[in-house]
């Protein structure tokens, strides 16, 4: 190990190679050392040294989601992308941008806004979360109903592989089918195939006007009917969000972007469709509602669920039914496309576990999923955070084995023990 450490020190300079701090532990695994490479070549070089020495690596961006995933089996070295923080190119005429992995989304958006453009993505904590981390966790928000998620926005990627290879895939043009689509494979892979060092995105214009309106619904079924009715007409909302909790009736938020006339016309149409619901004042910062699920009484669990859009009402009823007898307070923010986030509180971890297992079983049976994002470590020791990968798990394992044969990257944190 000492040889590897001195090689790493020589690679990046002593000032960028240090011992870890206690708060840098991932679940209960504390890496010995933290390295902060200056460029993609140094990332690749560091990986080659570490894997050559048989050691394990935990990649890190803005450290906002380090508790996502199962606890790592080990991880002697943490590779931070903090210094890879440049917006390499904003080709505004082509509506693309090339950005290094350690750049925060906020910094990228500020640069893009200078030319009236944006990455049409609204993940959690944009002021701290980095491009690399957002890609690795495939995080997306309400905008996806109109612009898709990362898989629809990322057009190129550079990956540093455990053997020190730096590989590019995709490119700088929006339309490109040359070769396999590695940007999609890397998206959501939680750093288990390689470390993303750079990404290229397609961009969208900053909207001329944004309008939000909110409704309160009597119950889950009328809420679900409203959400489906909105999707079944030919309006083009850029956000359709459901908020619910144990102490409130379900609320629906809608957002339109575009010209004033376009927004007005769609709002009018919405009011006709939503005549059965009560219009309410839209709370401030409502499109960040999801991030509020990370605060509240402890202990708690925050999880992400996915389901078919028409199943949302039934799922809300299930949560209500399961949590009431156990007195588990809960809050939920869901997008109409069928992706949502649930916070469940309660002192009895047994009750929390039972509820989570119940929800997961129900969702998986109907083609959905439940992934635990944050929870007490005790729960992680009793329940896999990812759920089932189905019959594709052997294939996922062999992809992992091809890219990372010694299981050096984030060992054990991903699905199926990958």
């Amino acid at each position, binding site marked *: 190990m000492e040889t590897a450490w001195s090689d790493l020190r020589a690679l990046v300079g002593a000032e960028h190679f240090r011992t870890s701090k206690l708060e840098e532990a991932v679940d209960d695994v504390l890496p010995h050392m933290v390295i902060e490479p200056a460029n993609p070549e140094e990332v690749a070089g560091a990986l080659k040294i570490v894997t050559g020495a048989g050691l394990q690596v935990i990649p890190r961006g803005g450290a906002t989601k380090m508790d996502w995933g199962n606890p790592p089996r080990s991880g002697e070295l943490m590779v931070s992308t903090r210094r890879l923080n440049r917006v390499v190119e904003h080709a505004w005429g082509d509506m693309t941008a090339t950005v290094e992995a350690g750049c925060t989304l906020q910094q990228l958006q500020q640069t893009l806004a200078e030319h009236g453009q944006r990455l049409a993505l609204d993940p959690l904590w944009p002021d701290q979360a980095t491009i690399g981390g957002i890609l690795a966790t495939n995080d997306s928000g309400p905008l996806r109903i109109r612009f898709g998620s990362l898989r629809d926005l990322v057009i190129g990627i550079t990956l540093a592989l455990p053997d020190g290879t730096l590989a590019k895939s995709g490119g700088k043009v*929006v339309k*490109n089918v040359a070769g396999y689509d590695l940007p999609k*494979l890397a998206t959501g892979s939680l750093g288990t195939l390689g470390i993303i060092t750079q990404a290229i995105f397609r961009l969208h214009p900053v909207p001329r006007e944004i309008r939000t309106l909110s409704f309160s619904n009597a119950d889950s079924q009328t809420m679900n009917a409203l959400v489906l009715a909105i999707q079944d007409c030919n309006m083009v909302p850029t956000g359709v969000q459901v908020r619910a909790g144990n102490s409130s009736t379900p609320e629906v938020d809608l957002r339109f972007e575009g010209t004033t006339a376009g927004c007005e016309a769609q709002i009018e149409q919405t009011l006709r469709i939503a005549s059965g619901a009560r219009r309410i004042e839209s709370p401030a910062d409502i499109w960040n509602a999801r991030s509020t699920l990370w605060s509240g009484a402890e202990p708690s669990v925050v999880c992400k669920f996915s389901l078919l859009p028409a199943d949302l009402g039934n799922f809300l009823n299930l949560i209500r039914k399961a949590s009431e007898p156990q007195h588990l307070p809960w809050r939920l923010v869901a997008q109409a496309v069928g992706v949502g986030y649930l916070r469940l509180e309660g002192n009895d971890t047994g009750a929390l576990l039972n509820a989570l297992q119940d929800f997961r079983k129900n*969702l998986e049976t109907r083609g959905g999923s439940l992934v635990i994002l944050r929870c007490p470590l005790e729960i992680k020791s009793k329940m*896999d955070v990812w759920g089932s990968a189905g019959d594709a798990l052997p294939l996922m394992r062999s992809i992992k084995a091809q890219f990372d044969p*010694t*299981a050096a990257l984030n060992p054990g944190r991903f699905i199926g023990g990958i």
Partner: protein
Amino acid sequence: MEARILGEFRAIVGKGLITEASELHTYECDGLTNLRVLPQAVLLPTSTREVQAIVRICQREKIPFVARGSGTGLSGGALPVETGVLISLARMNHILEVDLPNARVVVEPGVVNSDVTQRVASHGYFFAPDPSSQSVCTIGGNLAENSGGAHCLKYGFTTTHVLALEVVLPDASIVHLGSRALDRPGYDLPGIFVGSEGTLGIATKVVLRVMKKPAVIQTLLAAFNTTTEAGAAVSGIIGAGMLPAAIEMMDNLAIQAAEAAVHAGYPNCGGLLLVELDGPAAEVEHLMDQVGEICTQCGAWEIRVAQSDAERALVWKGRKAAFAAVGRISPNYIVQDGVVPRTALPKILSEIERMSAADGLRVANVFHAGDGNLHPLVLYDRRIPGQEERATELSINILRLCVKFGGSITGEHGVGAEKKMMMGEMFAEPDLETMQLVRCAFDPEHLSNPGKVFPRTRMCAERTGPYQPHPLEVAGVAQFF
């Protein structure tokens, strides 16, 4: 092929086995007709189980197999392998399920693209990917090539609209990639499978996402003296913060061809622009006025807006027929599919013009201007000695130019057999080696559509690293299936 093996195939597909040379010729090429190979046999399975049984034999006997839809591909992706079999999915052409509340449609791979839209149109839905061959090409072929079409500028490619797949892997196992709901945990396997040009296995069932048809669709036709002027209008439209559903451009030669073929009523001009906007009525009307103004400022001398479905259909008919129409003005032609960053369009067009003049070969240009996807059509006459070679060379040089401008050798037609030697000009060796790691995970023996996409085949090392059980497995709390 040994009679023993043919007998086994016959036992699976019965009359769906073709071995007669005269019948095999139907399958010797796809839309790229200058590459032709006769397979040993053609098989027409009717179910996933039959596909699996065929692949199981191929796996056992190490027989390469190539899947085929309608054979409209333009890069030789469905070109048979001489020592192998061709598996046509044409008989697996059923729409299995329509779930409109969730906007999902489940199909077999042999379903024709436009049949999906037709099935859901009465409820106001459509399937967005619209390659020009959409009335013939199949979903299986679309997903192999990750097909685009004119409207992918706004709506994305096939990969955007494929949520889940049932696949027969080259080892004959059946796996399910993705799910009907979004964001299935694990690697994005539909993301890597779509666009892999048949090299990772055979899709036997596909869950598609359909979309609600926009409230209003308007198509504007603008005539300019030059493609440069038309190109400036495209920049103006994008610069104004609009995202049209489609922006297409044709040069004079392409216009002449389209007119000769389908009489679309295009103005005879140097650069024709076709801009389609869709969305809420109030929005489209407002923005269309703006598009018209931008075109006028850039020198458009005629502007028409097609309002009715019939008018729009005629406008699009000329554009969609453009490739075939070129056959009216030239005995032979090569279609290419390069992409450049949109701002490089004027530069590359003048460069193509220069190369075309220098070589004495005409080049017609039809392209998706909004996303920089060029379809230069190099016209030639095979009967004139040496012209075919010169035309091929010119079309390759155009692709080289695309790479030089930071673009791609293919935007929607795929690499296939045709452009695999160009991959090395676009990607470095480590890039190509890394992509092939995926191939090694899916198809270590290179049985599924071998010899396509990559210039050289990576030898697949057995890289199954030591599997370390998860602590939960050790503790006996969880099991992985």
